Protein backbone atom coordinates (compact mmCIF):
# COMPACT_ATOMS: atom_id res chain seq x y z
CA UNK A 1 0.00 0.00 0.00
CA UNK A 2 2.21 2.76 -1.19
CA UNK A 3 -0.69 5.13 -1.66
CA UNK A 4 -3.46 4.14 0.71
CA UNK A 5 -5.53 7.18 -0.13
CA UNK A 6 -6.13 5.82 -3.60
CA UNK A 7 -6.09 2.12 -3.04
CA UNK A 8 -8.42 1.87 -0.08
CA UNK A 9 -12.17 2.33 -0.34
CA UNK A 10 -13.51 5.37 1.42
CA UNK A 11 -14.32 4.93 5.07
CA UNK A 12 -18.11 4.63 5.09
CA UNK A 13 -18.42 6.86 8.16
CA UNK A 14 -15.60 9.19 7.31
CA UNK A 15 -15.54 12.19 5.03
CA UNK A 16 -15.67 11.34 1.36
CA UNK A 17 -12.40 11.69 -0.53
CA UNK A 18 -11.79 14.72 -2.73
CA UNK A 19 -12.64 12.99 -5.96
CA UNK A 20 -15.87 11.46 -4.78
CA UNK A 21 -14.84 8.36 -6.77
CA UNK A 22 -12.81 6.10 -4.51
CA UNK A 23 -12.11 3.67 -7.33
CA UNK A 24 -9.26 1.21 -7.21
CA UNK A 25 -8.84 1.59 -10.96
CA UNK A 26 -7.99 4.56 -13.14
CA UNK A 27 -8.29 5.24 -16.86
CA UNK A 28 -5.30 3.01 -17.56
CA UNK A 29 -7.33 0.04 -16.45
CA UNK A 30 -9.46 0.38 -19.57
CA UNK A 31 -13.21 0.13 -19.71
CA UNK A 32 -14.79 -1.49 -16.69
CA UNK A 33 -17.77 -2.76 -18.63
CA UNK A 34 -16.58 -5.16 -21.31
CA UNK A 35 -17.24 -3.40 -24.63
CA UNK A 36 -19.66 -5.86 -26.13
CA UNK A 37 -21.81 -6.03 -23.00
CA UNK A 38 -23.72 -3.06 -24.45
CA UNK A 39 -24.57 -5.10 -27.51
CA UNK A 40 -25.59 -8.10 -25.41
CA UNK A 41 -22.60 -9.96 -26.75
CA UNK A 42 -23.38 -9.42 -30.41
CA UNK A 43 -20.42 -8.48 -32.58
CA UNK A 44 -22.28 -8.06 -35.85
CA UNK A 45 -25.68 -7.95 -37.45
CA UNK A 46 -26.75 -10.90 -39.55
CA UNK A 47 -26.66 -10.09 -43.23
CA UNK A 48 -25.36 -6.59 -42.71
CA UNK A 49 -22.43 -5.05 -44.50
CA UNK A 50 -19.58 -3.90 -42.35
CA UNK A 51 -20.35 -0.20 -42.12
CA UNK A 52 -17.59 1.97 -43.52
CA UNK A 53 -15.92 4.33 -41.05
CA UNK A 54 -16.97 7.33 -43.13
CA UNK A 55 -20.46 6.06 -43.96
CA UNK A 56 -23.00 8.60 -42.75
CA UNK A 57 -25.77 7.71 -40.33
CA UNK A 58 -28.83 9.81 -41.11
CA UNK A 59 -31.86 10.09 -38.82
CA UNK A 60 -35.25 9.24 -40.31
CA UNK A 61 -38.25 11.44 -39.69
CA UNK A 62 -39.60 8.76 -37.31
CA UNK A 63 -36.61 9.40 -35.03
CA UNK A 64 -38.07 12.75 -33.97
CA UNK A 65 -40.66 11.04 -31.78
CA UNK A 66 -39.62 11.78 -28.15
CA UNK A 67 -40.76 8.29 -27.13
CA UNK A 68 -37.45 6.87 -28.37
CA UNK A 69 -35.50 8.70 -25.69
CA UNK A 70 -37.47 6.75 -23.10
CA UNK A 71 -37.48 3.33 -24.70
CA UNK A 72 -34.01 3.03 -26.22
CA UNK A 73 -30.87 2.19 -24.27
CA UNK A 74 -28.79 5.25 -23.32
CA UNK A 75 -26.22 4.43 -26.02
CA UNK A 76 -28.84 4.01 -28.74
CA UNK A 77 -30.54 7.24 -27.64
CA UNK A 78 -27.18 9.05 -27.63
CA UNK A 79 -26.45 7.97 -31.21
CA UNK A 80 -29.94 8.91 -32.35
CA UNK A 81 -29.69 12.32 -30.65
CA UNK A 82 -26.40 13.12 -32.41
CA UNK A 83 -27.77 12.01 -35.78
CA UNK A 84 -30.86 14.18 -35.33
CA UNK A 85 -28.58 17.25 -35.16
CA UNK A 86 -26.85 16.36 -38.41
CA UNK A 87 -25.71 13.22 -40.24
CA UNK A 88 -22.75 11.63 -38.43
CA UNK A 89 -20.06 9.32 -39.73
CA UNK A 90 -19.58 5.95 -38.03
CA UNK A 91 -16.11 7.11 -36.90
CA UNK A 92 -17.48 10.32 -35.34
CA UNK A 93 -20.14 8.42 -33.44
CA UNK A 94 -17.53 6.02 -32.06
CA UNK A 95 -15.31 8.94 -31.02
CA UNK A 96 -18.18 10.90 -29.44
CA UNK A 97 -19.47 7.93 -27.48
CA UNK A 98 -15.91 6.80 -26.72
CA UNK A 99 -16.84 3.27 -27.68
CA UNK A 100 -14.99 0.82 -29.88
CA UNK A 101 -16.00 1.00 -33.54
CA UNK A 102 -17.19 -2.62 -33.52
CA UNK A 103 -19.62 -1.86 -30.69
CA UNK A 104 -20.97 1.26 -32.38
CA UNK A 105 -21.50 -0.67 -35.61
CA UNK A 106 -23.79 -3.12 -33.83
CA UNK A 107 -25.72 -0.31 -32.12
CA UNK A 108 -26.19 1.51 -35.45
CA UNK A 109 -27.38 -1.77 -36.96
CA UNK A 110 -30.10 -1.93 -34.30
CA UNK A 111 -31.28 1.57 -35.22
CA UNK A 112 -31.29 0.67 -38.92
CA UNK A 113 -33.40 -2.37 -38.11
CA UNK A 114 -35.83 -0.18 -36.18
CA UNK A 115 -35.97 2.14 -39.22
CA UNK A 116 -34.88 5.11 -37.13
CA UNK A 117 -31.77 5.79 -39.23
CA UNK A 118 -30.39 4.91 -42.62
CA UNK A 119 -26.75 4.62 -43.59
CA UNK A 120 -25.26 6.04 -46.77
CA UNK A 121 -22.52 4.26 -48.65
CA UNK A 122 -19.52 6.53 -49.21
CA UNK A 123 -18.52 6.94 -52.84
CA UNK A 124 -15.15 5.27 -53.50
CA UNK A 125 -12.84 7.79 -55.20
CA UNK A 126 -12.57 5.49 -58.22
CA UNK A 127 -16.32 5.89 -58.77
CA UNK A 128 -16.32 9.68 -58.69
CA UNK A 129 -17.84 10.81 -61.98
CA UNK A 130 -15.13 13.35 -62.78
CA UNK A 131 -12.43 15.53 -61.30
CA UNK A 132 -14.73 18.29 -60.14
CA UNK A 133 -15.14 16.88 -56.60
CA UNK A 134 -11.37 16.57 -56.16
CA UNK A 135 -10.92 20.13 -57.38
CA UNK A 136 -13.46 21.23 -54.82
CA UNK A 137 -11.50 19.40 -52.12
CA UNK A 138 -8.31 21.21 -53.16
CA UNK A 139 -10.07 24.58 -53.23
CA UNK A 140 -11.64 23.85 -49.84
CA UNK A 141 -8.31 22.93 -48.28
CA UNK A 142 -6.63 26.06 -49.63
CA UNK A 143 -9.45 28.20 -48.25
CA UNK A 144 -9.17 26.79 -44.72
Amino acid at each position, binding site marked *: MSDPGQDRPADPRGTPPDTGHPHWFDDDAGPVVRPYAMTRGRTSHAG*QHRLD*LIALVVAEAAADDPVWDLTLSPEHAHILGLCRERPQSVAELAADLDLAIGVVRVLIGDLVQDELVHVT*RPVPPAELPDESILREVIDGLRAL
Partner: protein
Amino acid sequence: MAFGRSSRTGAMHAVSPVEPLTLKILVAGGFGVGKTTLVSAVSEIRPLRTEERLSEPGAAVDDTDGVEGKSTTTVAMDFGRITLREDLVLYLFGTPGQDRFWFLWDELAQGSLGSVVLADTRRLADCFAAIDYFERRGIPFVVAVNCFDGAERHPVVTVREALDLDPEVPVLLCDARDRESVKDVLVGVVEHAMSLARARRAMSAGA
Protein backbone atom coordinates in the same frame (compact mmCIF):
# COMPACT_ATOMS: atom_id res chain seq x y z
CA MET B 1 -31.45 -3.05 -46.53
CA ALA B 2 -30.79 -0.06 -48.73
CA PHE B 3 -27.26 1.23 -48.60
CA GLY B 4 -27.39 3.23 -51.78
CA ARG B 5 -26.55 6.88 -51.63
CA SER B 6 -29.61 9.00 -51.48
CA SER B 7 -29.66 12.08 -53.63
CA ARG B 8 -27.13 14.66 -52.58
CA THR B 9 -29.69 17.39 -52.41
CA GLY B 10 -31.82 15.29 -50.10
CA ALA B 11 -34.67 17.75 -50.46
CA MET B 12 -37.22 15.11 -49.47
CA HIS B 13 -35.66 14.60 -46.10
CA ALA B 14 -37.29 16.63 -43.38
CA VAL B 15 -34.72 15.90 -40.68
CA SER B 16 -31.40 16.58 -42.37
CA PRO B 17 -31.44 18.57 -45.57
CA VAL B 18 -27.84 17.89 -46.58
CA GLU B 19 -26.09 14.55 -46.66
CA PRO B 20 -22.47 15.51 -47.24
CA LEU B 21 -20.09 13.65 -49.49
CA THR B 22 -17.39 12.11 -47.29
CA LEU B 23 -13.80 11.37 -48.26
CA LYS B 24 -10.82 10.13 -46.28
CA ILE B 25 -7.07 10.54 -46.30
CA LEU B 26 -4.76 8.33 -44.22
CA VAL B 27 -1.75 9.53 -42.29
CA ALA B 28 0.87 6.82 -41.89
CA GLY B 29 4.41 6.70 -40.61
CA GLY B 30 6.51 5.33 -37.79
CA PHE B 31 5.84 5.76 -34.12
CA GLY B 32 6.53 9.30 -32.86
CA VAL B 33 7.03 10.80 -36.31
CA GLY B 34 4.30 13.41 -35.75
CA LYS B 35 1.08 11.87 -37.08
CA THR B 36 -0.98 13.18 -34.17
CA THR B 37 0.60 16.62 -34.55
CA LEU B 38 -0.14 16.72 -38.26
CA VAL B 39 -3.79 15.77 -37.85
CA SER B 40 -4.32 18.27 -35.04
CA ALA B 41 -2.73 21.08 -37.07
CA VAL B 42 -5.69 21.10 -39.49
CA SER B 43 -8.51 19.43 -37.65
CA GLU B 44 -10.31 18.93 -34.46
CA ILE B 45 -8.74 15.70 -33.31
CA ARG B 46 -10.28 12.90 -31.34
CA PRO B 47 -9.00 9.49 -30.46
CA LEU B 48 -10.86 6.65 -32.03
CA ARG B 49 -10.95 3.26 -30.36
CA THR B 50 -11.48 0.02 -32.08
CA GLU B 51 -11.88 -3.36 -30.52
CA GLU B 52 -10.41 -6.01 -32.73
CA ARG B 53 -9.85 -9.69 -32.58
CA LEU B 54 -6.26 -10.54 -31.82
CA SER B 55 -4.67 -11.97 -34.93
CA GLU B 56 -3.04 -15.37 -34.63
CA PRO B 57 0.54 -14.06 -34.37
CA GLY B 58 -0.60 -11.61 -31.71
CA ALA B 59 -2.33 -14.36 -29.79
CA ALA B 60 0.90 -16.34 -29.79
CA VAL B 61 2.93 -13.41 -28.50
CA ASP B 62 0.54 -12.28 -25.82
CA ASP B 63 0.71 -14.37 -22.72
CA THR B 64 -2.92 -15.21 -22.25
CA ASP B 65 -2.45 -17.71 -19.41
CA GLY B 66 -5.01 -16.98 -16.79
CA VAL B 67 -7.00 -14.61 -18.97
CA GLU B 68 -8.67 -17.15 -21.22
CA GLY B 69 -11.30 -15.45 -23.29
CA LYS B 70 -9.20 -12.38 -24.00
CA SER B 71 -9.39 -12.66 -27.75
CA THR B 72 -9.74 -8.96 -28.52
CA THR B 73 -7.58 -5.95 -27.98
CA THR B 74 -8.25 -2.24 -28.06
CA VAL B 75 -6.36 -0.13 -30.58
CA ALA B 76 -6.38 3.67 -30.56
CA MET B 77 -6.04 5.79 -33.68
CA ASP B 78 -6.01 9.51 -34.42
CA PHE B 79 -9.06 10.77 -36.19
CA GLY B 80 -9.82 14.24 -37.50
CA ARG B 81 -12.56 15.96 -39.44
CA ILE B 82 -12.28 18.89 -41.85
CA THR B 83 -15.54 20.39 -43.06
CA LEU B 84 -14.66 21.83 -46.45
CA ARG B 85 -18.22 22.79 -47.25
CA GLU B 86 -21.58 21.96 -45.83
CA ASP B 87 -21.82 19.10 -48.30
CA LEU B 88 -18.17 18.04 -48.46
CA VAL B 89 -16.30 16.57 -45.50
CA LEU B 90 -12.76 15.22 -45.38
CA TYR B 91 -11.75 12.79 -42.64
CA LEU B 92 -8.17 12.07 -41.60
CA PHE B 93 -7.20 8.77 -40.02
CA GLY B 94 -3.84 8.22 -38.37
CA THR B 95 -2.89 4.60 -38.91
CA PRO B 96 -1.80 2.58 -35.90
CA GLY B 97 2.00 2.50 -35.81
CA GLN B 98 2.64 -0.97 -34.47
CA ASP B 99 3.20 -3.75 -36.99
CA ARG B 100 0.82 -6.09 -35.22
CA PHE B 101 -2.11 -3.88 -36.18
CA TRP B 102 -1.54 -4.13 -39.92
CA PHE B 103 -4.85 -5.90 -40.28
CA LEU B 104 -6.59 -2.62 -39.42
CA TRP B 105 -5.00 -0.86 -42.36
CA ASP B 106 -7.02 -2.70 -44.96
CA GLU B 107 -10.25 -1.26 -43.65
CA LEU B 108 -8.76 2.22 -43.34
CA ALA B 109 -7.23 2.10 -46.80
CA GLN B 110 -10.34 0.84 -48.56
CA GLY B 111 -12.01 3.70 -50.41
CA SER B 112 -9.45 6.25 -49.31
CA LEU B 113 -8.55 9.15 -51.54
CA GLY B 114 -4.88 8.70 -50.77
CA SER B 115 -2.39 8.93 -47.97
CA VAL B 116 0.45 10.83 -46.41
CA VAL B 117 3.54 8.88 -45.36
CA LEU B 118 5.16 11.06 -42.75
CA ALA B 119 8.91 10.52 -42.55
CA ASP B 120 11.64 11.49 -40.13
CA THR B 121 15.05 11.66 -41.82
CA ARG B 122 16.70 10.36 -38.65
CA ARG B 123 14.61 7.18 -38.91
CA LEU B 124 13.71 6.80 -42.57
CA ALA B 125 13.45 3.03 -42.27
CA ASP B 126 10.36 3.46 -40.06
CA CYS B 127 8.27 4.37 -43.09
CA PHE B 128 9.42 1.55 -45.40
CA ALA B 129 6.52 -0.66 -44.37
CA ALA B 130 3.91 2.03 -45.05
CA ILE B 131 5.40 2.87 -48.47
CA ASP B 132 5.47 -0.81 -49.37
CA TYR B 133 1.85 -1.20 -48.29
CA PHE B 134 0.55 1.69 -50.41
CA GLU B 135 2.69 0.78 -53.43
CA ARG B 136 1.38 -2.80 -53.46
CA ARG B 137 -2.22 -1.68 -53.33
CA GLY B 138 -1.89 1.15 -55.82
CA ILE B 139 -3.06 3.74 -53.29
CA PRO B 140 -1.85 7.26 -54.14
CA PHE B 141 0.55 8.58 -51.52
CA VAL B 142 2.99 11.41 -50.97
CA VAL B 143 6.00 11.29 -48.67
CA ALA B 144 6.07 14.28 -46.34
CA VAL B 145 9.38 14.76 -44.55
CA ASN B 146 8.69 16.27 -41.16
CA CYS B 147 11.44 18.82 -40.62
CA PHE B 148 12.02 18.56 -36.90
CA ASP B 149 13.96 21.30 -35.21
CA GLY B 150 17.58 20.32 -35.14
CA ALA B 151 17.17 17.51 -37.65
CA GLU B 152 19.55 17.64 -40.53
CA ARG B 153 17.77 18.91 -43.65
CA HIS B 154 18.26 16.24 -46.22
CA PRO B 155 17.56 17.37 -49.74
CA VAL B 156 14.47 15.88 -51.33
CA VAL B 157 16.63 13.97 -53.81
CA THR B 158 18.51 12.15 -51.05
CA VAL B 159 15.27 11.13 -49.34
CA ARG B 160 13.80 9.94 -52.62
CA GLU B 161 16.85 7.79 -53.31
CA ALA B 162 17.02 6.42 -49.79
CA LEU B 163 13.37 5.37 -50.00
CA ASP B 164 13.71 4.05 -53.56
CA LEU B 165 10.54 5.85 -54.63
CA ASP B 166 8.96 5.73 -58.06
CA PRO B 167 9.66 8.99 -59.88
CA GLU B 168 6.01 10.12 -59.85
CA VAL B 169 5.65 9.92 -56.05
CA PRO B 170 5.85 13.46 -54.66
CA VAL B 171 8.27 14.13 -51.80
CA LEU B 172 7.45 17.25 -49.79
CA LEU B 173 9.17 18.93 -46.89
CA CYS B 174 6.76 19.94 -44.14
CA ASP B 175 6.35 21.09 -40.59
CA ALA B 176 3.65 18.91 -39.03
CA ARG B 177 2.91 21.63 -36.46
CA ASP B 178 2.17 24.26 -39.08
CA ARG B 179 -1.36 24.49 -40.45
CA GLU B 180 -0.35 26.03 -43.79
CA SER B 181 2.35 23.43 -44.29
CA VAL B 182 -0.05 20.57 -43.53
CA LYS B 183 -2.66 22.06 -45.88
CA ASP B 184 -0.02 21.99 -48.65
CA VAL B 185 0.68 18.33 -47.91
CA LEU B 186 -3.01 17.40 -48.11
CA VAL B 187 -3.44 19.37 -51.33
CA GLY B 188 -0.41 17.43 -52.60
CA VAL B 189 -2.17 14.12 -51.86
CA VAL B 190 -5.34 15.13 -53.72
CA GLU B 191 -3.40 16.52 -56.70
CA HIS B 192 -1.35 13.33 -56.90
CA ALA B 193 -4.50 11.18 -56.71
CA MET B 194 -5.99 13.29 -59.48
CA SER B 195 -3.01 12.92 -61.81
CA LEU B 196 -2.82 9.15 -61.20
CA ALA B 197 -6.53 8.83 -62.00
CA ARG B 198 -5.99 10.85 -65.15
CA ALA B 199 -3.09 8.61 -66.21
CA ARG B 200 -5.19 5.49 -65.59
CA ARG B 201 -8.04 6.88 -67.65
CA ALA B 202 -5.66 7.68 -70.48
CA MET B 203 -4.23 4.16 -70.30
CA SER B 204 -7.62 2.48 -70.48
CA ALA B 205 -8.74 4.79 -73.27
CA GLY B 206 -5.61 3.97 -75.25
CA ALA B 207 -5.83 0.23 -74.70
